[in-house]
């Protein structure tokens, strides 16, 4: 057959096929156009995100402290809103410009749903459902919100949720956070946000041309279930926490109780505080203003973020320095007659009539300032700051909370820089020796000091998380607890410090006698930090039982007065309650 014929056959076949295609397209696009236009408007399938339920937060006994309850949120698809504006603004009580503002802020695509209002009331919900046909582009969905079933407050520990801000959205993977998402803003909610939040699911629903869901309630076209967040099991004992919160009501201050054997936080109270349930509703500007401008600073976690001079509790570190220096330091006696003259200044002891002649152990027991002034002078600034750092002052405890303060340890460089080279007097060293002046610590660090001495030099990083548990598979992931040994302080030094602390509570002249208990041997150290702005701060740190310590603690009362008089009795109550609970648990 001639090639010419074959060419023509191919031409005809190709032309016929292309003609067929063009015919088919013209049929679809011209003849059936109106039908498909209708379809395209009617038949839209939308991907609706199902919010996963956020992981629960439970105490060490498995009691739920932070829970979820369902609530409804309203969403819109901006391009489909059409004539919904007026009616919607009436139902939600938001002006049209406020709605527009919300959309501008949270929009991430022409057809993506924007959250307009969280936690609408039942009335608002019923109105929207009732007038669904007049509200194109508007939908609502269940979103879990936080709920606090227990009486435990501890807002600083748990933290609250809020809508993701731009910084977070930019810094994190686009697939994890979306505009309008609720994320942990403070506390554990923030630290463990990625573990708690879970993975959103998807519903594929049919919507009509105006974005209204058709066949709502009759099942979705397809559904990918949300994966709930992991449950956070805490080291906190809810009952001890609650007890302490009650003890501290009306007081500024707080307490930290830790397990000596692993650094677990058993209770941590900071007062004044606020009610977390205030934050489960969308936060109003007024409320925020009231809280943030409150002079008692309820938003502040006094245990973790606030810095105070440690007062006499620091004498333990000074004593440790003397004991480590050995002969000529730890075997000295000084006489206290109520004040010590240095240069032309008088440095007072807290006991006006004086302590008489004391050795180191007696000076710890009675917390004699005059003794420690002289000891501090002898040791000098370099040794004092070195030992303060050995006890981890100036370092965060690495607790799993945000914005922990590291505190501050003054040293020679700092004093030279601040007061001018050679311009500062030994008076500053005297002050440092009794825990006043530039030295600043958090109550958490003081609890760490108590734990280190109780454990004879073994330190554990503080933590609130015991383990995370997958709610479905029940797979648990535990944090690692590694002991660290404090370098350069011998066991005999720790023995002496422990004996000193024992005498503080149990000695004839001990300053911490108010913490004495008949059945449990307690060791502690009082502290009274002078406060240039008002009354003294009261400190009491310690551990119990003396022989084989289980818990260490620090109690702090802002402007409370003397540590022995105010803080020590609270510490006694704390230990009593701890053992009371222990006994009931063991039974």
């Amino acid at each position: 057959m001639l090639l010419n014929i074959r060419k023509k056959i191919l031409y005809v076949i190709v032309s016929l096929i292309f003609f067929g295609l063009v015919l088919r397209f013209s049929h679809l696009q011209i003849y059936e156009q109106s039908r498909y236009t209708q379809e395209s408007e009617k038949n839209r399938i939308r991907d609706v995100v199902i919010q996963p339920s956020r992981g629960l937060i439970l105490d060490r006994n498995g009691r739920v402290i932070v829970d979820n309850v369902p609530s409804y949120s309203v969403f819109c698809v901006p391009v489909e809103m059409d004539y919904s504006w007026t009616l919607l603004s009436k139902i939600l009580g938001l002006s049209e410009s406020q709605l527009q503002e919300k959309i501008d802020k949270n929009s991430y695509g022409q057809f993506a749903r924007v959250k307009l209002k969280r936690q609408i009331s039942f009335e608002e919900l019923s109105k929207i459902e009732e007038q669904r046909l007049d509200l194109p582009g508007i939908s609502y969905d269940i979103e879990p919100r936080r709920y606090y079933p227990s009486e435990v407050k501890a807002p600083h520990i748990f933290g609250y949720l809020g809508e993701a801000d731009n910084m977070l959205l930019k810094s994190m993977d686009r697939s994890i956070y979306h505009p309008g998402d609720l994320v942990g803003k403070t506390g554990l909610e923030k630290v463990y946000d990625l573990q708690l939040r879970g993975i959103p699911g998807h519903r594929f629903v049919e919507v009509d041309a105006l974005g209204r869901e058709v066949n709502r309630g009759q099942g979705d076209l397809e559904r990918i279930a949300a994966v709930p967040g992991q449950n956070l099991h805490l080291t906190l004992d809810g009952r001890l926490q609650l007890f302490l919160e009650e003890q501290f009501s009306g007081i500024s201050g707080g307490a930290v109780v830790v397990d000596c054997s692993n650094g677990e936080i058993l209770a941590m109270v900071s007062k004044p505080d606020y009610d977390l349930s205030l934050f489960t509703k969308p936060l109003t500007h007024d409320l925020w203003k009231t809280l943030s401008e409150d002079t008692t600073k309820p938003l502040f976690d006094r245990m973790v973020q606030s810095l105070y001079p440690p007062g006499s509790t620091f004498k333990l570190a000074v004593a440790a320095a003397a004991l480590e220096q050995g002969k000529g330091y730890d075997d000295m006696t000084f006489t206290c007659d109520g004040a010590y003259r240095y240069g032309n200044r008088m440095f007072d002891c807290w006991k006006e009539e004086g302590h008489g002649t004391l050795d180191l152990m007696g000076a710890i027991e009675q917390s004699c300032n005059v003794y420690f002034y002289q000891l501090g002078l002898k040791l000098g600034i370099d040794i004092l700051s070195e030992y303060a750092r050995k006890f981890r002052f100036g370092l965060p405890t690495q607790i799993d909370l945000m914005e922990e303060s590291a505190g501050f340890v003054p040293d020679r460089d700092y004093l030279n820089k601040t007061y001018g080279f050679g311009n500062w007097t030994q008076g500053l060293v005297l002050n440092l020796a009794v825990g006043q002046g530039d030295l600043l610590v958090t109550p958490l660090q003081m609890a760490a000091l108590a734990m280190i001495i109780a454990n004879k030099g073994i330190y554990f990083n503080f933590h609130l998380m015991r383990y995370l548990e997958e709610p479905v598979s029940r797979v648990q992931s535990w944090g690692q607890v590694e002991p660290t040994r404090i370098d350069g302080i011998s066991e005999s030094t720790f023995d002496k410090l422990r004996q000193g602390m024992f005498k503080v509570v149990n000695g004839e002249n001990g300053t911490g006698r108010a913490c004495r208990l008949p059945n449990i041997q307690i060791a502690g150290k009082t502290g009274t930090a002078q406060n240039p702005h008002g009354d003294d701060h009261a400190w009491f740190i310690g551990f119990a039982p003396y022989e084989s310590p289980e818990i260490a603690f620090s109690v702090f009362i802002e402007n409370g007065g003397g540590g022995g008089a105010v803080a020590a009795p609270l510490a006694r109550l704390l230990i009593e309650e701890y053992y009371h609970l222990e006994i009931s648990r063991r039974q």
Partner: protein
Amino acid sequence: MIYENTKISAVDIIIIIAMILLVIAGLVSIYSAVHASGLSELHANFSRQILWFAVGVVFFVCTTFLSIRLISDVSYWIYFFTLVLLASTLFAGAGAGVQRWLVIGPVQFQPAEFCKIGVVLALAKYLSTENRDLNRPSHIFMSGLIVLLPVLLLLKQPDLGTALVFISLILPVIFWAGLPLHLMAILLAPCISMIASFHYYSFFAAMIFIALVFALFRRGLKFLLGNMVVNIAVAVTTPFLWNALHAYQKHRILTFLGMELDVHGSGYQLIQSKVAIGSGGLLGKGFLEGTQTQLRFLPAQHTDFIFSVIGEEFGFVGIFLILLLFYFIIIRGIHVAFNCRNKFASLMSIGAASVIAIHVIINTGMTVGVMPVTGIPLPLISYGGSSLMTNMILIALIINASMRRYHI
């Protein structure tokens, strides 16, 4: 001599313009298709496609000016090379569920695409060799084998769509090489038997039709009966082979034949694609205005279903212009093949035009439900570097052949 001394004026400028217009149309549609998925993806996909085009231009120019003798000499080598690449996907392939990709350093590509070039060249080479006689079954079988090797590898991947392209490719090429019509009928009849084997009535109707056609050739009773036995055997065994197919392949074929409607799978794509195209109307909804596209209904709207995006946003006018450009390139390829005195160049041009034609017909037909949803790209337009480069090289082969139409 690697390059022949050719005047630039001899280059077929119009076909190049058609190609560039199609690539531009592709970029515009890809932009629209990924626009819906967010900015970062958009930039990544869009700029990558431009990069592929730039690389493609280099290959295009080189291929255009290569000496036809050189191409002829290395034809088998290219074929085997692309075949080895294709085979290696079975061992080293990367890809979700199906092994179609090969990764070399930062470059990811689909050997199946480049293998099309290899098959076109090998077929042209084999059929243009002297003393080739397409009346001899062994020679037909050998040319079939050239196609069969990649088809087997593709079925193993499994990539049914691309396998279908290779199988369809052999028909126009051996037809052009001078296969007698009665042999052509022998080859085609089993395909019809296969499709008709699913139903009693269609089976009988097909058998009667085939018998009539064979009778018309008047080649004797033996010829007629022999062929009927083969076709009946094919029709009977097909259902068994059917059961050996992958579930998703059966699914797609059934959906294609209208025997099954799958709202979530390929049927869903088809419905959404038809809605997109149909609602586009005569003039379309406008660039970035297609609701179906921007709502991301079509799972592969920047690759396999790019034509639906064009249909929705640019309407029938857009569709018509694109089809016209393809039609022009394909007819040009046949025209070049006819004018070539060099048999190798002629067959190469037919092969290249056929590959493009098959892709265009299956892909565009798929978007409106006249072809199965097989997942093969639209030449020059769909997103994807391997496909873009392969098609540019195929067009370069046509141009190359057209410049040397008087060489022997």
